[in-house]
């Protein structure tokens, strides 16, 4: 709940986010309240233009994304503002105030509707009146679309045909709701619930191919699995135990104080491959040594057999890189990754963002070996050093900063996804502190 989070604020740092323009014109990274945009076509950084009374963001950004046609970009987070930007001018065209902090956003394909989820589990919708470059900033009011009862929504996605909007939460639930013609009246028709995860659902993505234009839904969770769903019926098609596949000790791993969680998913446009970001999470604070999963797991999707299988693991060996966010584009075959956290006041550590790119992230073709995915060296990344300078804030990251950041990344993910466990004593105390208990008839 909101007040619980409020109390843990001083230790709560936000994971860095990355989003890539569908035609790879821009790459954006959000670290804390800082939104960084790089123009890949012109090889220069972009300055944002925001004429609102509260320009840019004042607190951690929790969600960023480009619209499918690339014309719009949305950013939102803890400052309870949703900002909608034109990607031509990088002006803020619309600003929406949220009652609560924002945890996820989605844009309909045509860019007509923007949806966002707040910390109370309510999904809101705003209708845009197009992208008019020289319009003055418009403040929009959002209407409630649907709600998960008091559970933080971690991911929000439109189905490829936009008939449905899918929302995932920390209470293991995935809800598929028909997206109505007039969403401002709410989305009341629930198509299905996809239920099988036994921990928080952290991420969702759709995969579709020519034979399955409707697409299949893929979800990642704290239960160390990636699952494949027929989302119209809610039936589970396949479960990929990525924790076990990664060779990480499982099952009794929990008792030893560690657990594998899936933190990010990103599919190729043809749906043949899904990149999975994995973290090994320590549940017991006292343990300080950990072994992170060294890289990204690529799952191959077999649409006819409806199976996800591990295609390969792309190792990132030279540094303790734990991606916090993934992104790709229509045709570049590049998987963009960022690892990072906002600075945490308590530890005094500076914010860090490290951007890495994997090439050959495209069609899973057993025949061709030329396209073997590899991690690009910094100077091979599109945009080169200029881009890294902008998105990372500096070019090289020292090793101890890196390992400190790795720790912070884990804490950030933990806070984001795992519910706070209160001791019985503390729960009693919180109960007593409440003034709303005695609703007398």
């Amino acid at each position, binding site marked *: 709940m909101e007040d619980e989070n409020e109390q843990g604020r001083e230790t709560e740092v936000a994971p860095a986010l990355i989003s890539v323009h569908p035609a790879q014109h821009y790459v954006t990274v959000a670290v804390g309240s800082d939104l960084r945009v790089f123009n890949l076509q012109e090889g220069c950084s972009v300055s944002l233009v925001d004429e609102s009374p509260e320009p840019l963001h004042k607190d951690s950004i929790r969600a960023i994304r480009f619209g499918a046609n690339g014309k719009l970009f949305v950013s939102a987070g803890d400052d309870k503002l949703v900002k909608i930007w034109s990607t031509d001018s990088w002006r803020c065209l619309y600003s929406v105030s949220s009652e609560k902090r924002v945890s996820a956003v989605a844009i309909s394909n045509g860019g007509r509707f923007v949806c966002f989820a707040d910390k109370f589990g309510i999904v809101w919708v705003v209708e845009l009146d197009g992208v008019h470059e020289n319009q003055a900033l418009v403040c929009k009011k959002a209407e409630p679309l649907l709600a998960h009862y008091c559970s933080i929504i971690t991911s929000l996605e439109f189905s490829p045909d936009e008939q449905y909007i899918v929302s995932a939460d920390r209470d293991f639930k995935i809800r598929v709701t028909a997206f109505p013609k007039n969403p401002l009246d709410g*989305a*009341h028709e*629930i198509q299905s*619930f996809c239920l099988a995860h036994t921990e928080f659902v952290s991420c969702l993505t759709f995969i579709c191919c020519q034979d399955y234009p409707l697409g299949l839904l893929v979800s990642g969770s704290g239960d160390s699995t990636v699952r494949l769903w027929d989302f119209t019926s809610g039936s589970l098609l396949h479960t990929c135990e990525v924790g076990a596949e990664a060779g990480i000790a499982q099952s009794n791993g929990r008792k030893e104080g560690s657990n594998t969680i899936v933190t990010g998913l990103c599919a190729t446009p043809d749906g043949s491959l899904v990149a999975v970001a994995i973290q090994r999470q320590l549940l017991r604070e006292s343990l300080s040594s950990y072994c992170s999963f060294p890289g990204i797991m690529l799952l191959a999707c077999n649409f006819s057999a409806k199976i996800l299988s591990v295609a390969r693991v792309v190792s990132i060996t030279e540094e303790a890189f734990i991606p916090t966010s993934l992104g790709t584009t229509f045709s570049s075959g590049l998987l963009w990754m960022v690892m990072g956290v906002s600075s945490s006041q308590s530890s005094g550590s500076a914010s860090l963002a490290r951007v890495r790119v994997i090439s050959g992230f495209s069609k899973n073709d057993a025949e061709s070996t030329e396209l073997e995915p590899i991690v690009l060296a910094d100077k091979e990344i599109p945009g080169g050093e200029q881009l890294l300078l902008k998105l990372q804030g500096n070019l090289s990251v020292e090793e101890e900063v890196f390992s400190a950041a790795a720790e912070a990344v884990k804490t950030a993910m933990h806070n984001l996804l795992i519910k706070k466990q209160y001791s019985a004593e503390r729960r009693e105390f919180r109960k007593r502190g409440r003034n709303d208990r005695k*609703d007398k*008839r």
Partner: protein
Amino acid sequence: MLENEENPCISKSTRLPRKRFYRARAHSNPLSDSHFPVPISPSHVDYSLHYPQFFQSSDILAGSKKIEFADIGCGFGGLLISLATLFPETLMIGMELRDKVTEYVKERILALRKASPGEYQNASVVRTNSMKYIPNYFEKGQLSKMFFLFPDPHFKEKNHRRRVISPHLLDEYAYVLRVGGIIYTITDVEELGDWMKSCLEGHCMFEAITEEELEADPVVKLLSSATEEGQKVSRNGGQTFRAVYRRILPCV
């Protein structure tokens, strides 16, 4: 439990559980996270535990039965007890947030099963937060009746989101109710009655049931008479406010 003749919570004369041993806090906060098991999905609900006679028999037809009635916030279970004999072939479940109250209902049903062999086999109860976990118990269109009798009023505006009837929760109830299924609500709090009625009236998947139909429905009479809360209200001569709606297809 029932084996133990010395159980002080069970009355020696009536062999029914004594309510005073199961007294609990008047209200629970449905927003706080409690610690009780939740089935991963409706297919994980263990029917043989709830309805052993239906599910341990070799009768395949009985074994494929699903729960059709849900009494949300069932309290001490009076409605379930009445419905169990009125619809002996229909599986029904009460959902209750308070632990001790749930235990009481469990014991009550077990005692009734023992006292009248063959009866009450179709009624059971589960401790859960219905506001969070309804989709974990019931599939799409599984239920034909849902009951909300004398729910907690949560007067303050800021606590309205704790009410068991709200526009967003009605979306979930519409999901688990089949087309033609009925939602029954009743309260002695006028303001809450107005609220529940306006939520249902404003929802595109519910329509009001006509007075004639209400007259003909044997269940309607139970709304104010079968539950402990209802009996208390009628003892005190209180007024009740009812809203009974049918699940319909949304018009597109």
